């Protein structure tokens, strides 16, 4: 049984081919000491309209994986192997002209830091309009009118005035809303978000997150959302993939991964979250630091920090094994209770957003 089928709103789309399909993605950057492999074989797929959260620490390769989707690594001089297909088109072999149509057209991108991600010497409205003109070939006037509507969509008040403002004249929250408007301007099928709320104040964070979820649901846009924040992941994810040292170590439905994690790394992460009932208690912690991806140990890359390490972990790099339908972990000795719905009555299957 496919876990996606248990979620009613995704029902009609399940039969369609995946919108995003990443197979054997490997990315290396040239450093002073030769090539460093920062993504070491990532497989992912995402159906239309669904939200996947890529969860991981800094340096786990989650942002690089995200930037590989619209082929942005080409300009960065990275070495990319494997395939990234968006709606059947292979981004890694797409001719430049086709790639330009894909970017901003079928795939929207939201960056982490809205201050530096917007051009400081262009008006916000012009930056949105130029995207629309580029992809739709409409007049500048028509594009500005669309930008005006987009500002209503992302709930920016005094839209006329804000369209004429420069990025430095807006608050962080408004800038990120403008960024979302820009990413949504050509009605993409796939929205990519690289920690879009991390640079914002806590109260603004939740507003922007809710807005993003609302727009994405309303328009049926699929989304890949990168974050290191478990709370954010729980808020927005249908599916979660946890990355460690350039690989995915656990993936599955949001509830499966976040509530019933099986990989020791995911378990350690979820233990670090403060919950109301745990106040004044010592938090779980994860000793050690993420490994240097240029000098990985043999065997499982998490083994040196793993509390459940066995002797064979240091010899074999584990493959994915299925733990429950739609729930996999790359671990030789997965622990913790299973997320199999039949074994835990009383918890509704599917969405983790009910709590």
């Amino acid at each position, binding site marked *: 049984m496919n876990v996606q089928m248990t979620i009613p709103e995704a029902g009609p789309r399940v039969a369609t081919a995946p919108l995003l399909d990443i197979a054997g993605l490997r990315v290396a950057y040239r450093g002073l000491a030769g090539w460093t492999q920062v993504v070491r074989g990532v497989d992912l797929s995402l159906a239309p309209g669904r939200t996947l959260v890529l969860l991981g620490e800094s340096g786990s390769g989650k942002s690089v994986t995200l*930037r590989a989707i619209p082929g942005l690594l080409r300009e960065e001089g990275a070495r990319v192997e494997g395939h990234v297909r968006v709606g059947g088109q292979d981004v890694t072999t797409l001719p430049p002209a086709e790639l330009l*149509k894909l*970017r901003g057209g079928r795939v929207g*991108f939201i960056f982490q830091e809205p201050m530096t991600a917007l*051009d400081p*010497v262009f008006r916000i409205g012009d930056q949105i309009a130029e995207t629309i003109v*580029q992809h739709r070939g409409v007049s500048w006037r028509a594009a500005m009118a669309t930008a005006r509507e987009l500002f209503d969509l992302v709930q920016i008040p005094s839209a006329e005035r804000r369209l004429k403002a420069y990025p430095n004249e807006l608050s962080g929250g408004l800038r990120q809303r403008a960024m979302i408007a820009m990413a949504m301007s050509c009605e993409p099928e796939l929205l990519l978000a690289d920690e879009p709320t991390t640079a914002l104040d806590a109260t603004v964070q939740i507003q922007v997150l809710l807005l993003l979820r609302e727009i994405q649901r309303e328009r049926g846009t699929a989304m890949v959302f990168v974050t290191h924040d478990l709370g954010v992941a729980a808020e927005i994810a249908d599916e979660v993939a946890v990355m460690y040292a350039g690989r995915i170590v656990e993936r599955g439905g949001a509830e499966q991964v976040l509530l019933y994690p099986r990989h020791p790394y995911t378990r350690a992460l979820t233990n670090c979250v403060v919950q109301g009932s745990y106040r004044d208690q010592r938090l779980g912690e994860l000793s050690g630091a993420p490994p240097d991806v240029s000098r990985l140990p043999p065997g499982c890359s998490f083994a040196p920090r793993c509390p459940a390490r066995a002797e064979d972990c240091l010899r074999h790099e584990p493959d994915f094994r299925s733990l429950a339908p739609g729930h996999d972990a790359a671990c030789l000795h997965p622990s913790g209770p299973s997320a199999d719905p039949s074994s835990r009555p009383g918890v509704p299957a599917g969405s983790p957003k009910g709590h």
Partner: protein
Amino acid sequence: MLLYVVRRLLYAVPIALGVTLVVFSLVHIAPGDPISALLPNEATEEMLQQARKEFGLDRPLPVQYAIWLGHAAVGNLGVSIGSGRPVADEVAAAVVNTVILAVSAGLLSCLLGFVLGMVAGLRRDGLIDHLVNLFTISGVSLPHYWLAILLVIVFSVNLSWLPPLGVGPDTSDGWRPDWAHLRHLILPTLATAAIPMAVIARTMRAGVVDVLDQDFIGTLRAKGLPPRRILWHVVRNALPTTLAVMGLQLGNMLGGSVLVETVFAWPGTGFLLASAIFQRDLPLLQGTMLVLAMFFVFLNLIVDLVQSATDPRIRRS
């Protein structure tokens, strides 16, 4: 924006006044008596006193300053001790010649500097970048008077292609852009443009490299903009700094180069300044310096205004 213009104009007033004070003081602090240079050695003390009185040099300095400032304000810069002609006329004639040279060298250095800097920045660490780098390092390192002499040796003495001296035939209706005059302009233009061109190219290159490293370039790519549209964003971001440097370089050129104008006997302000110093021609020296200093105040004003029109962040601060 209008408020910024008004404020910036008001700032220019005390700056201009300060400049007049400095010009006046410098000339009067400098050692040497202009009158003793003017009169023959055997002149009596009485004759010297008489001459000082004539030129107003016997009054207290603050009074001299006030009188000079009052006259300067209405365009009367006094009479040249050396030639006996009004300083204003002498300076005006020299300014015209310097402006001709500055415009010609300015156009060359701005255009070439902008293009070379942009290409080098876009092709960072490529062959073109290294070539431009070599070219611009030579440009800022070579003394311009040395370059001027070298140009004269090669193109005038050895090849006999271009004239080494002067502005060209002295026709009744002044300087005209015909070949007879333009051929005199070529060598001084090259010598004058070398350093500014190199400075502008280096500024533009640094600006382009800096902009290409910024996060928003990633956004522009992720929006699917074609390379030429991204280039437009790069240029618009690198432009304010480059414009400021262009303005200052143009200001330098408008000030006239004492050395280059002397090598080519180009009768501009630099040449005039040099002869005023050698002849201890106080009114001429003061007048020339004042006009040049005012040029700079005015130019900085223009640069600031243009910069604020191209960069919204400046208006706010």
